[in-house]
């Protein structure tokens, strides 16, 4: 089909083509046949993974099914909202494509609308990649009506895009161009984590004797209509046609209204952000400090300044903390007369290991000006050493507080925690250094997208060290096996001899 250049659908296609090109960057160097094979394998794998879950779901009683479904729908929606905030904030601040379109004679409203539609499509596909295989398996196991999940995910994506768009514009109006990016990043993190935290909260404290249950049982009863409205998405997902149409209409209307109503404000914001470089917005005056001497100090200071100013780093650390805290609470309360170290140590090790990996990636492999550093009168070994110092300084500071707290109650366990945390951090940093895949400095997106395979390896080795620490704290022999597994994993991942030379 030939689309008229500059038309709304033409713009939507343009955005989707760009998104597909970004996605295809993950498969650089592979043939088309190989890419389709990988995608097909991924789909088969996901369906295989969802099959037992669908069986389990089908065996549950109706009430459990309803509450599981409600949780899943809410989780999907919050995940989509988080994705939408991230994408709209990126659009607001990134330079390039939008600049060209805003400067063109094409209607700005059409440009923004097309981008919003493309965002909703992207969100549908990202979330759908996980949800659709489950819907297929449920349809196979329980009936074709579960295929209603497909349009339901689209409706949810429209509503989530509207919510994400409104939140981004709201944050921009509230905080201004200087702080919105960081705030939106944190908001997206918190929203994505909210459902998991809520689920963990109910799981942990949900027995009749626990306060959360009492809290949930004392909630005011919703009026019948509201109750009916709230349950619309759940009924829509399970194939109720009226509910599905209602939900899709609601999503579509909310999406159209938000983009049309708040679009001009968003565009004003985008233009304001683009004007930052023209001196329309002045930086705050700072006290003039004298320069400080030394190449070593300069390298460390530069890395620490860049890390401290990276909102992505903050949100990733926060997300890790939020996800892991409930797991540690589970470990803690599952043991009678449990040691405090069982709560603190695995959490600290996992978070620090993850942070070490991120910091190594950001400081060593995502250096903004590698050529410039090469021309400086310092050796590459010195540069690496000071970068590592810059990585381990904040990690040490983060480790200090829980160590002091734990040392007060359980000094030996505090020492064990420190040793295993150091091992975990060193392992994560080494895996990053040994598997360099430098990001393009000019691309914030690639800068903040470490290779997934390296992230997976970091997680494996971090789990080894966390398990080893839990074992050591519990004086159980398996800590030796976990330690050996961690060491073996790091050893296996060392670079080939030729690369090291």
């Amino acid at each position: 089909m030939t689309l008229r250049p500059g038309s709304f659908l033409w713009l939507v296609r343009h955005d989707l083509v760009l998104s597909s090109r970004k996605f295809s960057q993950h498969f650089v160097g592979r043939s088309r046949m190989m890419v389709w094979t990988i995608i097909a394998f991924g789909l088969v794998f996901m369906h295989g993974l969802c099959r037992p879950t669908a069986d389990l779901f089908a065996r549950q009683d109706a009430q459990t099914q309803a509450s599981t479904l409600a949780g899943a729908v809410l989780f999907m929606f919050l995940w989509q909202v988080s994705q939408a905030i991230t994408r709209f904030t990126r659009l607001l601040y990134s330079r390039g494509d939008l600049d060209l379109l805003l400067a063109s004679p094409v209607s700005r409203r059409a440009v923004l609308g097309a981008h919003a539609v493309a965002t909703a499509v992207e969100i549908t596909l990202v979330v759908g990649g996980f949800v659709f295989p489950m819907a297929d398996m449920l349809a196979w196991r329980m009936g074709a009506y579960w295929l209603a999940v497909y349009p339901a995910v689209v409706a949810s994506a429209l509503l989530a895009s509207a919510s994400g768009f409104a939140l981004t514009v709201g944050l921009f109006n509230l905080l201004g161009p200087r702080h919105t990016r960081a705030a939106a990043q944190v908001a997206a993190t918190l929203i994505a984590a909210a459902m998991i935290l809520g689920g963990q909260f109910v799981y942990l404290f949900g027995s009749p004797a626990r306060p959360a249950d009492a809290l949930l049982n004392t909630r005011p009863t919703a009026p019948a209509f509201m109750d009916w409205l709230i349950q619309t998405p759940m009924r829509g997902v399970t194939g109720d046609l009226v509910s599905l149409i209602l939900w899709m209409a609601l999503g579509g209307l909310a999406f159209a209204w938000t983009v049309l109503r708040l679009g001009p404000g968003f565009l004003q914001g985008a233009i304001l952000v683009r004007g930052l470089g023209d001196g329309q917005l002045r930086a705050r005056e700072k006290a003039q400090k004298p320069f400080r001497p030394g190449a070593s100090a300069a390298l460390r200071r530069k890395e620490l300044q860049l890390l401290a100013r990276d909102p992505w780093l903050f949100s990733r650390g926060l997300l890790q903390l939020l996800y892991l805290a409930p797991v540690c609470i589970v470990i803690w309360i599952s043991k009678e007369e449990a040691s405090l170290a069982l709560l603190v140590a695995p959490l600290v090790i996992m978070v620090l290991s993850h942070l070490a990996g991120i910091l190594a990636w950001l400081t060593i492999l995502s250096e903004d000006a590698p050529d410039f550093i090469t021309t400086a009168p310092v050796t590459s070994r010195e540069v690496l050493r000071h970068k590592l110092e810059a990585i381990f300084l904040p990690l040490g500071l983060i480790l200090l507080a829980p160590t002091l707290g734990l040392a007060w109650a359980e000094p030996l366990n505090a020492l064990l925690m420190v040793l295993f945390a150091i091992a975990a951090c060193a392992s994560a940093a080494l895996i990053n250094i040994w598997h360099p895949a430098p990001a393009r400095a000019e691309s914030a997106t690639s800068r903040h997208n470490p290779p997934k395979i390296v992230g997976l390896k970091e997680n494996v080795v971090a789990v080894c060290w966390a398990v080893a620490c839990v074992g050591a704290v519990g004086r159980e022999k398996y800590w030796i096996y976990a330690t050996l597994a961690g060491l073996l994993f790091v050893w296996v991942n060392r670079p080939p001899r030729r690369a090291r030379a």
Partner: protein
Amino acid sequence: MSVASSPAPALSIRGLCKSFDGKPAVEQLDLTIQPGEFYALLGPNGAGKTTTIRMAAGLLLPDSGSIEIYGVDALHDPIAARRITAWLPDEPALYDKLDPLEYLEFVAGLWGVDPAVAMSRARDLMEVLELWPHRHTRCEGFSRGMKQKVALAGALIHDPMLLLLDEPLTGLDAAIARQVKDLLTLRARAGRAIILTTHILEVAERLADRIGIISAGRLCAQGTLEELRARTGRAGDTLEDVFLDITSRAPAP
């Protein structure tokens, strides 16, 4: 004997060769630049200008040949060579999350400049380049020209004896380009050697003491503008005419 009083040439390149995937980018290049000299290296796209500059800056290792900077063998003692050299690429290499003052402090620290001297130089350079009002604004919001000015200030803050400039005027407006040209001329008069590549022939014509024309990785001609005119036998021609005449007669790659 200090580098400043060394009788050695500021840059001496002998028999420099570099190939990429078997395709020669620079072939048997010989180049000598004296202290205080402003040398413009011209050539069509892909002629080997940037490759030459990057090898002199220590960013690329040559396949063969030698590079000496004020008598220091840049291939065997790269740290000593870098200490007296500055390199400015056409795409400014900055840190978006640092402001210009922080960037200059970082560069001065790397080159071991005394903090008080560096602070004073930073202020002078930023005032000349009209960056002082933006000293606390992070570079991420700067236009390309602004970024280029910050990078230039960074290249000059350690007062290098040899400046390697790769298309330094790209993206600068006329007024700032004029300031930069004046700044570079002053540096050359103060005894610093400058080698610059540019496609703006007027810059080379006006500023350079000597001009080298490179094509297909080989130095086709070099000398003052008058010497180049004499070589083509067309007195009174502009540098553009001379350049086109010489490059059209150069062997194809």
